[in-house]
């Protein structure tokens, strides 16, 4: 599915990712944890192709395609989905209009006909129900005036509609209470079908109680410094990142 080899990336000439390797196979859930400033969010931005995030070394392929060679929207159409930590508010563009364009762009990529308004509406309503977003959120400006929790649920709603191959969830748990966390996690879990892969980026282990990872990686100072199974997350939960020793100190420096 996704293969990252020796990735180096920088923002404004500051090197953030320093030789990252990761292999994600179809259907797998990988959690990436790490202290603040380790480069967790940067990884999502680099993979999605955000302007200003320069890759200086390494390679990334998605289903065999050179991801780094593609534009942002092409990566999305290849099946990459990034759920934002801070979803962007776009007043004046309705959620519905936005998602209809997105869904139809994906369909075009797959050689399918665009959905009619009625067909789309039905799908969108179902997706809203799944994440417990009131239907009038479809008519509102994208994320405009949404609470933190509503924004996160809106991200998952989009993910359900777009049916991506690889989902990167960037701190989808931050700012959520337990109930909202459950809704987000249920939304994600409903999309696990043995084919779709997930990278769950989080600071806390809490989310992983709800979304069970196959692998847990600790990211510190731009590299994965330790990998393991779900028990690694519990270890972090118990003793913090200090157990990483040298790598942690570097990240803090």
């Amino acid at each position, binding site marked *: 599915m996704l293969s990252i080899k020796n990735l180096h990336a920088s923002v404004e000439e500051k090197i953030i990712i320093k030789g990252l390797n990761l292999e994600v196979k179809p259907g797998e859930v990988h959690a990436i944890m790490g202290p603040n400033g380790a480069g967790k969010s940067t990884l999502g931005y680099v993979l999605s192709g955000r302007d200003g995030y320069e890759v200086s070394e390494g390679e990334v392929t998605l289903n065999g395609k050179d991801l780094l060679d593609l534009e942002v929207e092409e990566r999305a159409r290849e099946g990459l989905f990034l759920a934002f930590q801070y979803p962007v508010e776009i007043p004046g563009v309705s959620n519905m209009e936005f998602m209809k364009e997105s869904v139809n762009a994906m369909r075009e990529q797959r050689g399918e006909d665009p959905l009619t308004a009625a067909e789309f509406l039905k799908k969108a309503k179902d997706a809203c129900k799944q994440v417990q977003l009131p239907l009038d959120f479809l008519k509102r400006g994208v994320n405009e005036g949404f609470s933190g929790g509503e924004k996160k649920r809106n991200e998952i709603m989009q993910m359900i509609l*777009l049916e991506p191959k690889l989902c990167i969830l960037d701190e989808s748990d931050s700012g959520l209470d337990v109930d909202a966390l459950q809704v987000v996690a249920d939304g994600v879990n409903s999309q696990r079908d043995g084919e779709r892969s997930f990278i769950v980026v989080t600071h806390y282990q809490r989310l992983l109680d709800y979304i069970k990872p196959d692998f847990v990686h600790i990211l510190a100072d731009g590299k994965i410094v330790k990998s393991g199974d779900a028990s690694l997350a519990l270890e972090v939960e118990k003793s913090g990142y200090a157990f990483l020793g040298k790598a942690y100190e570097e990240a803090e420096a």
Partner: protein
Amino acid sequence: MSQWLEQVIDGAALDDYLAPVRQQALTQLKNDGWPKRRNESWINTPLTPVEKRNVAIATQADSVPVPNIDNLNALDIVFVDGVLVTQINTLDVPEGMAITSLNVDDAATQQAIASVFGQVKPTRHLFGRVNDALCQHGVFINVADGAKVTKPIRIVNLATKNVDAHTRVLVKLGNASSAVIIEQGSGDTDSLTTAFAEYDIADDAHLEHYRFAMFTGSAKQLGGSHFMLHDRSTLNSTLVGYGSELSRLDVDMHHAGEFANAKMNAIYLLAEGELFDLHSTIEHAMPNGTTEENARGIVGDKARAVFNGRIHIHRDAQKTLAELNNRNLLLSRRGVINTKPELEIYADDVRCAHGATVAEIEGEALYYMLTRGVPRSKALVMLNFGFIQELINDMPNAAIRDWLLPVLSERFAHMEVK
């Protein structure tokens, strides 16, 4: 003095019932002459395209196809190259409303016309004066007290050949009456149109107003819409401007009564190399008035938008609420915006706000949309059109909304982002 203005002054005739106003305008034109280069009112809007023109007035015009607004069941009054081509006396005028040409013999009607002609529009506007002096074609719309006229009246100015067109619209809304008036203009050939409209809105009356100033190319338009608001009257106005070689609108809203409420939304979409200038002045002369003005525009490559929004709150205008906002989006480093919101307050118990912003393409929102696979060109339209669309959605008339949205988004979609 410019060659053109000299010819204007020479060509003016003072032989009708409007002579006193025409005479006053001529005197002001002679005394003030052509604006100097550093004249504040024209400093960002060069008048060179008019300066060396020769005055030419059309005496007759053919009927030409009038741009349609789908599903809008309006009563159309059409001027072609400054000539009124609609037979006013054949119109099926809604009950409670009277429409006459300015060329009338009846003394009572002449008197009613003279009570509006040049009485709402301030005398300072250069091309307003020219229109005062020269306009021969115009209509007077009189709405009786208490009449609620829902059928929109659409006044269309079409520029089709190289002449000067001076048309006038005068509207008198009686007490507690209401009307919907649309002023629409278009043309792209070398031409000059001064279309001025004056609205006298009596106590408790309501005017729904639109001005679609869609002149492009070498069609020069210099016009204005001017409103006098009496006690508890309300105005809801939407302006839409395209740019051309020279395009300028002057708007005045004068709160002459208490508790009046004026709302104006203005939209401009300027394609490559176009110029559009909106000067608006809001006079709060009386207490308890409310004004809300939102001007929003998108400025393309090498285009220029000029916005001057002045709110003047007189000493007696206590408890005024006035807000004015101008938002701009630049599509290119070579686009220019000259924006100047002005607040002048002499009363001490008022709430006022003004502001102006100039933005470039929102990188973060664009990125967000791209990560959802939306094509770049479509994302740009959806994103950057949102703030314009808000004003389109704010228009009270659904048929006009449904017509305008695709027209404007199409225009924007063809504007290049550089």
